[in-house]
């Protein structure tokens, strides 16, 4: 254990060292602002105007940040970066080919605080076709085709979504569908998908395998199934639903087609059918769910707590 004198000395030495090493972010962080212009390297003293331009000035593993609220336009991401909007609305109001496209090799991308609204245009909100991981946090997506279209073309990919809201999409709210060479691990924490034109959450393992978890999440008022889980030959698909709700959906609350869904401490009500399986699928309940008030509630198998 260091004595008080030693700690004092070290603290002072640290401050002295600091005098020579304190630094601004330099080119590792770029900035956009409503008053910016797309020239130069986008430092905080001369921010740029669009994500599309600023991303070209952001190095791999760098950060692209929003200074104030504005529409910054669509962006395609091919390297590991963070795009952050904190204390301001980082909006994207048009999308060609999508509002946000992520497609790279072994890249990790973090999106935080974005507002995506395509007003019913024929493009998706966030499309992921290649990379190792995508983190979506505190985002709002509405008026798109798919809200999130997670369709890796190969390899092992991971999707993390938290504290986000997806509403009024023309098709599925969140689509997870790796192709035959890909596999996906996905975690949704406090994610709401509401009023999707198709399914709320949909998992399709016709290609590679999927292992997904819904924590404290909601699928409500969607026009097909709330949580739709489709298995595929030779590609196991399993979804854990915990402390979540699938309510008021037009067709089924939870649907397992050739796949395994475990569900506990959750609410399934107000759907045409609460729990439904087909094609050798299983819905295993921890006997702690509220599955009532559907036109047909359905009946799960059971699994025990440990």
């Amino acid at each position, binding site marked *: 254990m*260091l004595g008080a004198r030693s700690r004092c000395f070290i603290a002072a030495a640290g401050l002295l060292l600091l005098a020579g090493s304190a*630094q601004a972010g330099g080119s590792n*962080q770029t900035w956009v602002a409503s008053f910016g212009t797309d020239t130069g390297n986008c430092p905080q003293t001369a921010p740029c105007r669009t994500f599309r331009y600023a991303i070209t000035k952001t190095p791999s593993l760098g950060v692209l940040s929003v200074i104030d609220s504005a529409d910054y336009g669509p962006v395609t991401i091919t390297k590991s970066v963070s795009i952050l909007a904190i204390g301001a609305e980082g909006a994207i109001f048009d999308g060609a080919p999508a509002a946000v496209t992520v497609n790279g090799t072994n890249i990790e991308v973090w999106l935080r605080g974005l507002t995506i609204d395509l007003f019913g245009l024929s493009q998706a909100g966030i499309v992921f076709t290649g990379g190792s991981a995508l983190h979506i946090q505190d985002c709002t997506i509405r008026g798109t085709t798919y809200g999130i279209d997670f369709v890796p073309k190969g390899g092992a990919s*991971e999707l993390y979504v938290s504290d986000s809201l997806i509403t009024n999409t023309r098709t599925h709210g969140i689509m997870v569908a790796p192709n035959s060479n890909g596999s996906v691990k996905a975690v949704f924490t406090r994610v709401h998908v509401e009023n999707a034109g198709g399914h709320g959450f949909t998992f399709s393992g016709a290609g590679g395998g999927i292992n997904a978890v819904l924590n404290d999440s909601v699928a409500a008022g969607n026009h097909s199934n709330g949580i739709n889980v489709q298995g595929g030959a030779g590609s196991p698909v399993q979804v854990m639903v915990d402390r979540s709700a699938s309510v008021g959906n037009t067709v089924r609350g939870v649907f397992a087609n050739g796949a395994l869904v475990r569900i506990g401490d959750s609410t399934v009500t107000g759907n045409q059918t609460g729990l439904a399986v087909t094609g050798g699928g299983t819905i295993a309940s921890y006997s702690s769910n509220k599955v009532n008030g559907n036109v047909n509630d359905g009946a799960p198998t059971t699994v025990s707590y440990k």
Partner: protein
Amino acid sequence: MAAACLLLGGVASAFAGSDQTWVARTGADTGACPITAPCKTFQYAYGQTNAKGVLSVLSSGEFGPLIIGKSISVVSERGEGAIVGANTWGSYGASIIVNGAGIEVKLRGLVIDPLVTPNYGIMLSNAKSLHIQDCKIRGGELGIYVGGASGGRAPGGDLYLSDTSVVGTRDIGIFIHPSSSGASMKVTMERVLVQNAATSGLSFFASGATVNATIRNSVFSGNGYHGISAAQSGVTLMADRVKLTNNSGGGVVATQGATVRIGDSVITGNAVGVNGYNGATILTFGTNKIDGNQIDGTPNGTVALQ
């Protein structure tokens, strides 16, 4: 002793005098950093802030790394208070270093990216308490590190962590590693996300020290090794409503005499669900969902709800 410390500290802190100071993107490092003339870097403004004062972010910007040796709150409520990069200190580098006997420090709303390894996000070397709230940490080697100073591992201090995410670190997400000198510390975590760490999400190693930790409503997912690991007999951990999913090693692993109690939690998609071995004990309240791991494992015992 205290006077000597103040004199040494005076090398950089230069007769601080305000209870609240401000930084802004457009600020300059002169004067006392009032709200009408904000400064440019955290470290300069820190030097102008009285002990127990508040250093606040006026507008989004990158404000450089910070070494803290006195009680202070660093608060970003209105925008992005970013630190991209790190100070070097002995053999360590960190975006924020907290090192002062008996100090109480609060960090709120910060975005921290220490960039390349071996830099850490936040290093707690010595304090009475450190509160971290609403912070986002990405990259670097360790997101949060308790322990570690160039002169040897220091006592640590109580750590309170809430509404904070740690993403994509190149080693452990949060590493609690107090000294072997009989130190005792408490750790409390609420709504914490640790995802995509290259090794374990949350790791405790207390050789000869005592750590009493409570983790609630938190997610440890997609990490390259264990979700939570606890080692050494001084570690006692309560995990309540915790999600340990899709980790490449264990969901929760305890070894070398550590004690872990776990309830109302989800452990799925890991290589091994639970594994208490080598004299360690994992006790379940019988309310956990431990399924869908390659090997689910079995808790070492049960403990009754009351």
